[in-house]
């Protein structure tokens, strides 16, 4: 299984786009950090703002970069790995090797999940460094308390929790993307379908807004509002999309 993963991982980096995406994403994170630290306030949601300081900065930075992550940096790699390789024909060489289909899909999922973790690590690193460099550590205690109640950020552990919950959302998006890539025949359509389904979910229910408005949704979860509903919604999307794609991947004619 480990070799399967490494093989998948190597193929991911064999596409020029992967390196370019990582570099550009890091650049976007740095620019966003510059802008955000100068701005000095972070928006928990449209109505609530919190003064930024060194320790809460990474969370708000992720909220700002979340659009680029969820709409560009992650899906581009998802679609390439899950559909592009098959459409283009390179994946046939892999399917001809003596492995179960399930194991091959699992290797893809693990590789993509590591990719998403890398993206989040970049934002976190930029956030921590930029926060320490450009912002003071000294929010007044009252302000800290305000931030804690509004954003659910009371300690660095909460910031990590913020990243953790966001990570789950991105992984759910990967499940959704797998399913869409199995349903539509072209990479352009798969990509557009993923973005369309983010938006569509917004219309279906307010509780499904986290794909498009993840930054805001995670603040709400951390501050203890509707965490249960969130877990239910995210969990069902994950179970349905991963389950359905698992079954389809094993049954479908992949190339």
């Amino acid at each position, binding site marked *: 299984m480990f070799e399967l993963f490494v093989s998948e991982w190597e193929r991911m980096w064999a596409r020029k786009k992967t390196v370019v995406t990582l570099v550009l994403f890091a650049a976007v994170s740095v620019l966003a950090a510059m802008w955000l630290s100068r701005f000095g306030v972070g928006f928990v949601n449209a109505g609530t703002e919190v003064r930024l300081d060194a320790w809460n900065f990474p969370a708000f930075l992720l909220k700002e970069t979340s*659009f680029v992550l969820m709409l560009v940096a992650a899906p581009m790699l998802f679609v390439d790995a899950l559909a592009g390789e098959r459409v283009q024909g390179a994946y046939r060489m892999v399917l001809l090797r003596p492995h179960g289909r399930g194991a091959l899909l699992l290797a893809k999922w693990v590789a993509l999940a590591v990719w998403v973790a890398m993206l989040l690590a970049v934002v976190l690193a930029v956030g921590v460094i930029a926060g320490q460099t450009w912002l003071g550590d000294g929010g007044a205690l009252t302000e800290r308390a305000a931030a804690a109640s509004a954003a659910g950020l009371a300690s660095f552990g909460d910031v990590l929790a913020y990243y953790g919950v966001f990570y789950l959302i991105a992984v759910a998006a990967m499940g959704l993307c797998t399913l869409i890539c199995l349903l539509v025949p*072209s990479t352009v359509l798969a990509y557009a379908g993923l973005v369309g389904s983010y938006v569509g979910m917004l219309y279906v229910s307010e509780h499904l807004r986290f794909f498009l408005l993840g930054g805001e949704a995670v603040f709400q979860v951390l501050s203890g509002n509707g965490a249960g509903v969130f877990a239910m919604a995210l969990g069902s999307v994950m179970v349905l999309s991963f389950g359905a794609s698992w079954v389809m991947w094993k049954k479908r004619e992949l190339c």
Partner: protein
Amino acid sequence: MKGLWMSEWLRLWSRKRTWGMFLMMPVLVYAAARYCLEQNGALSPGMPEYATVWNFPVLALAEHLMTVFNLLVVVLLAAAVTEEARSGQLRFLLLRAVTFAELFWAKWTVVLAAVGVFLGAFYLECWGIGWWLFERTETVGLFYREGAFAGGEAVRYGLAYYGLAGLTVVAMASVMLLLAVMAQTATAAVGMGIGWLLLSFGWPVAARMFGAQVQSLSITHIQHQGIAAMLADGRPMMRWNLGVMVCYVAVCLTVGYLWFVKRRGLDV
């Protein structure tokens, strides 16, 4: 050239995806109408945001669906340019003594024509659904304009609005064409397109302190606020915004054309 154009045009409409997107439009218009009805509860009649039969086509486009058209050009161009070039389909065309230049202009104008058809259909669908769901008030308010206006005036305003909206989509499409020509894969074309859209959304926020003109370098900003500003009393932003759009089209088409003709000749 005419034969090439027709074959590109028919190919576009022979695809299920084109029809799928076309048939999605009424659903989106209906969703926008429900949203506007809900909003009306919190507004008083006579405000420009208050939806009536007369201004619904403008509201639907302005508040919600401009982005749909931006995404539409991303998808159409990524499919027509990048996907075809990379899957070697262009080679068949080139065997039939079609030059890259002809192909470039055919693709560009076909996508523009398709967007025109989508926008026209969208306008009519707004009327149909609006007629069914909204009141036919005596007068209606318009953005950045003093006074109340009769229905006929609002319709004329709406047509001007759609004309300018069409221009913004042309400007957006020229950027997307350039990206689609440069991209190595179709996914990269879509990714770059969406990245550009995000940049366009972010720009007016980041450039707030520099004023409306700098903000209006973003086409999406023109779409969200610029068109209404262009049609406001005294037409304050008309020249500037048109200038920005013309620049986008001129620069992107020139670079895209040269790139397509020079580079693609090698690697198809």
